[in-house]
């Protein structure tokens, strides 16, 4: 066991919304070719058969309006472009987005990505700590079934937004920990934003939840549970007479406010020296939100469920949960991680594949050890705490964020 793991007492996961790896981090390839981002030559054909290339012209807001479709049939088109499911081409993103507004010029914007300088927080963390070349959403589908994998290691056969499964095995990672005498909490932003785990955990076990203000206090006072899951603000709303801007980065919410939010989570941990040296922070996105990524999703172990054609929405297609969704940004932060770590992905030497089932798999392995009541998918999922090394970086070597 490394010194980093021996010192580890807390794991914090922050899950953002609906942005692909290439959209947020694709620009980093220019400065570090080990990061599997964009070369600038990637393109899709639009509906007039003209190439629509990637361009560093992504905007913080008002560009991806309407919200790009990211339900199962649309993602199927984005990945396979009408071809065989044996050959993911990643060639159908522009055509899929065209269906939203029937505007060829607008549909090409789904290929746009952010230049590094526009996203100093997520690119700063990715280049200062560990970035994953191969972290994929768990399902080629929308938010809730993907977030379910982060909580339960499965979506219980769902590929949509209809998730009702409380009191079924496997238990959520929070229940597993609490039942074994450990501590765990989901922190939602505030009650007006609340959680995506409404009809399951919030409805049945509200005591598992706290607010973001409590998270900040818990960081300050050294009261953070062993495992924390942080949710951003999902809505623009008033709170005590003031305006609270959504920070989830879901289109068409402002990406810069999400940057501010990520920075505050990082700073809260960073500013408590005891917490900083004993905490690993994972920042991941739930799914790609219909936005272009160039890496074909790989296969994965089945999790024991199937979704028939009436649930996938693709005629004749039964989904066996045997392949992953589109790649998303994921960054692991800890002073025990060497600066500039790039975790290779599929197709690279020593490549590893991660997905959201890797979250409960990692937490279970670290805090509970052997725990059999899980899906085969979670049991076989890659875990990520081996990235913590023996050497803790000095304070001066780890950035801070200023506002």
């Amino acid at each position, binding site marked *: 066991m490394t010194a980093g793991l021996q010192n580890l007492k807390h794991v914090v996961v922050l899950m953002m919304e609906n942005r692909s790896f290439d959209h947020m981090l694709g620009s980093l390839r220019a400065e570090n070719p080990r990061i599997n981002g964009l070369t600038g030559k990637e393109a899709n054909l639009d509906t007039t058969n003209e190439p629509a290339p990637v361009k560093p012209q992504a905007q913080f807001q008002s560009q991806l309006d309407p919200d790009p479709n990211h339900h199962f049939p649309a993602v199927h088109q984005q990945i396979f472009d009408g071809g065989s499911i044996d050959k993911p081409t990643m060639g159908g993103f522009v055509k899929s987005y065209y269906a939203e507004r029937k505007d060829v010029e607008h549909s090409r914007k789904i290929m746009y990505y952010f230049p590094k300088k526009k996203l100093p927080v997520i690119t700063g963390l990715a280049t200062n700590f560990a970035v994953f070349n191969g972290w994929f959403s768990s399902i080629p589908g929308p938010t809730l079934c993907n977030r379910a994998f982060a909580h339960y290691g499965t979506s219980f056969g769902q590929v949509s937004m209809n998730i009702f499964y409380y009191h079924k095995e496997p238990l959520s990672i929070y229940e597993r920990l609490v039942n074994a005498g450990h501590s765990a909490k989901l922190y939602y932003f505030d009650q*007006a934003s*609340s959680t995506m785990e409404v009809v399951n955990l919030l409805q*049945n076990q*509200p005591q598992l939840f706290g607010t973001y203000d409590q998270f900040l206090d818990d960081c300050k006072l050294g009261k953070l549970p062993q495992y924390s899951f942080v949710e951003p603000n999902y809505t623009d709303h008033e709170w005590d007479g003031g*305006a609270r801007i959504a920070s989830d980065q*879901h289109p068409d919410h402002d990406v810069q406010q999400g940057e501010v939010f990520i920075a505050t989570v990082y700073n809260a941990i960073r500013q408590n020296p005891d917490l900083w040296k004993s905490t690993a922070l994972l920042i991941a996105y739930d799914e790609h939100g219909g936005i272009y990524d160039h890496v074909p999703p790989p296969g994965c172990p089945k999790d024991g469920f199937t979704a028939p054609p009436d649930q996938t929405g693709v005629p004749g297609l039964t989904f066996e949960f045997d392949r992953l969704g589109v790649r998303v940004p994921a960054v692991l932060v800890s002073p025990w991680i060497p600066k500039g770590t790039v975790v290779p992905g599929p197709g690279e030497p020593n490549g590893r594949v991660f997905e959201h089932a890797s979250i409960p798999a990692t937490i279970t392995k670290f805090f509970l050890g052997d725990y059999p009541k899980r899906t085969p998918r979670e049991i076989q999922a890659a875990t990520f705490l081996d990235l913590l090394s023996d050497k803790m970086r000095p304070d001066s070597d780890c950035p801070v964020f200023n506002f």
Partner: protein
Amino acid sequence: MAKAKKSTKAKVHRAKPPKAKAPKAKTRKTKAPKAIKVPKPAGTAYDPHRPLEKNQLIHSQVRHFQEAETQLPEHLRTGVNVADIKTEGQASHYIRKVTKALHESGGRPAQKVEKAT
């Protein structure tokens, strides 16, 4: 106008007291960590009047809160007709009420865990 009298007084050069030499630091100078500036979003970013149908996620959230509300005791229900919710701000107002009520309800007692099928 009378000329100002020239001072005959010689300039006095006072020896400056020797600068106190800082003792040689036994500890290394701590280098400040690199600070990364985080820009704030534009003032136009905030729009609670954004139509709900523009965000499928919040739209489905409202449906889920509606479902959760049906499980609450009568006195904790909001009485809100979700069909009247048209904007993100209105949705968050409703979500806040139901979240508060779910906390007040204290949750449901643990049931027997079933094997998922």
